[in-house]
């Protein structure tokens, strides 16, 4: 479904990512582990199509969604509009998605009226509303308190369990990978390459 054959990715003269391949098929879950600054987010940006300045080949599915490190919601639009505008979904679908993350009664609120944990759930609902073939998760539990992070891990695992979605999760925490039964891969070295844990 997504196939990356990377030869290298550099910022100026500094090579950040080396040569490796990554394939994720429908239903596959892959967690990319590695310390901060190793290039995990750079790799995710390449997969998402946000960075095209790399040496290599990539094929992507038609429908992709991404949950960013920050909720990345439009603060001037209601929660329902945030989902509708990004995905083009009907109001019924939006209501159902928000119900799935336990926020059905927050439809008309603005993101600024919600806690960070709730905003992250909205971001997750937005991604799933897009009915993606491939879901990219970028350390989306970062900066949450321990209890909220545990709740979010459970929620993500539960929501993607029955869906035939390919998932690429980027994290430095192995328990995030375990929560969605993802195959862990380690990004390491200079320039970083991908290998089994």
């Amino acid at each position, binding site marked *: 479904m997504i196939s990356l054959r990377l030869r290298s990715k550099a910022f100026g003269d500094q090579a950040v990512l080396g040569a490796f391949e990554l394939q994720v098929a429908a239903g596959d879950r892959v967690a990319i582990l590695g310390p901060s600054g190793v290039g995990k987010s750079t790799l995710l*940006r390449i997969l*998402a*199509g*946000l960075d095209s300045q790399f040496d290599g080949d990539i094929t992507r599915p038609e429908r*992709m*969604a*991404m949950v*960013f490190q*920050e909720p*990345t919601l*439009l*603060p*001037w*639009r209601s929660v329902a*509009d945030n989902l509708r*505008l*990004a*995905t083009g979904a009907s109001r019924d679908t939006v209501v159902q998605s928000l119900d799935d993350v336990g926020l059905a009664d927050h439809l008309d*609120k*603005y993101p*600024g*009226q919600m806690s960070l944990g709730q905003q992250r759930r909205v971001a997750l609902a*937005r991604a799933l509303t*897009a009915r993606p073939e491939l879901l*990219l998760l970028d350390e989306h539990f970062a900066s949450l308190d321990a209890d909220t992070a545990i709740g979010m891990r459970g929620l993500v695992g539960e929501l993607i369990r029955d869906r035939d979605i390919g998932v690429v999760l980027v994290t430095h925490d192995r328990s995030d990978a375990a929560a969605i039964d993802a195959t862990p891969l380690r990004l390491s070295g200079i320039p970083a390459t991908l290998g089994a844990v």
Partner: protein
Amino acid sequence: MIADDTVLPGPLAVGAQMVDLTLHGDLLFHLWATLWRVVAAFALAMGIGAALGIVLGRQRRVDQWLDLWVVVFLNIPALVTIVLCYLWIGLTEVAAITAVALNKIPMVTVILREGARALNPALDDMAQVYRMPWRDRFRHVVLPQLAPFFASAARTGVALIWKIVLVVEFLGRSSGIGFKIHLNFQLFDIAAVLAYASAFVLVMLAVEFAVLKPLESRANRWRQS
């Protein structure tokens, strides 16, 4: 010391003159002529200035290319632009409105360029990943971020434009508040000068409270919630 009424007429005298000119004179006709020029120049300046500002704020190379010209136009005195437009285009309505718009465009460009530079790249990424259509992106992602910059450009724009319109009318039109001020200046009729000027100030106050403030309040509703 109390000033002579012919030099500094009191508010009552100016008010009475304004009422008289409205009911029996040509104040409304000239008010309308000036207002139309203000609206036309404002629309042109905001449209061209905003488009240019957004492009310069988003495209670094274009900005490097045109930055010097923006500074040049920003510093050309209004009078020079007005005189040149009248000389090149003639004493016409097109020349008048072009001269006013040219004076304001660089200021709108600079304000909107700052706004475009401050756009949140994370929201751009989100819009790109979700493949939002460009119209939705512009309307729901870009424009709301630029709203405070539009409001600032509009407010300073209206204030500046109507002052320049008066100069343009003073120098080369046969209608408008500026033309009437010119006429009454020659007659040394200070009450009439103040009456025409005050009438337009009242119109601009009405625009501020009836149009700009409600629009601003609507655009900022999400901040207040």
